[in-house]
């Protein structure tokens, strides 16, 4: 398995929301021809909708709004996980849900999924960023990494031809 599938790739919304989606067979996403499965984004919470089973929110990173979903119904999966793991995950999810408030700067990591034809992040963890400069660092990191993948692709094509 490509190791990149197990890491969270820092992506700007403009990049994340334009990923290529391969919908036949298992759902897969490609970024500059490399498969990716997880993403990290950082931005301001501009919308928040809390239901019993989930919290839906939008993260505005200055290039787009990334839909995020945080599931709160861990007890529905009681047969699949150890009860202690489940309890911890449920408690953490509730803590994250409390943290996520309008206007706050948050770093979100999770799996890339699709709902109703729209790419979203199914949230695994959330960090509140108190230093506003972290957003600038995130922009520059995303730009650098995206360009690096472009360069790698160009070099790969050149070495093949």
């Amino acid at each position: 398995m490509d190791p990149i599938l197990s890491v969270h790739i820092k992506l700007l919304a403009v990049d994340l929301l334009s990923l290529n989606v391969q919908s036949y067979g298992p759902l897969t996403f490609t970024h500059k021809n490399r498969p990716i499965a997880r993403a990290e984004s950082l931005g301001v919470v501009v919308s928040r909708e809390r239901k019993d089973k989930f919290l839906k929110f939008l993260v505005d990173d200055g290039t787009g709004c990334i839909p995020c979903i945080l599931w709160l119904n861990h007890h529905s999966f009681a047969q699949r996980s150890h009860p202690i793991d489940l309890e911890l995950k449920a408690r953490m999810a509730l803590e994250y849900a409390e943290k996520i408030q309008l206007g706050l700067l948050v770093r979100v990591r999770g799996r890339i999924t699709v709902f109703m034809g729209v790419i979203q992040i199914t949230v695994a963890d959330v960090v509140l960023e108190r230093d506003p400069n972290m957003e600038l660092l995130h922009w520059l990191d995303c730009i650098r990494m995206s360009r690096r993948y472009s360069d790698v692709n160009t070099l790969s094509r050149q070495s093949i031809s």
Partner: protein
Amino acid sequence: MASSSAIQHGIPATLQELEPSSPLFKQGESLRVTGKLQTYNAETAVAIIADGGTSLKIHTQYLRGISFRIGSVYQFIGELLIQSDNEVILQARVGRNVDGIDLNLYYQSLQFLRKFETEFMNSRAT
């Protein structure tokens, strides 16, 4: 992929860019603006922020849980309202205190971000 949401992202803009000749100077444009708080009127919920010699009025009546301190730096996301005399007001949806932000670094990073977005759009168009 379908469009992500009805809520538009706030395009980061400098206060100097909010003049009639700018492409960002549009009725209802969603923007993200940053500046130092000059005045705040609790009765009207109107704040005035300034940066680089330019100021902007912000309607803050929809914001909750934000305390305003004169001299602190704030960032707002909202929609631009252009009045008949070309006076502009931002109707803020969200706001936050960004004291400690390095504004020089912010504007430099913004240039990189815009260049990246332009390259990205051009690469998708070809």
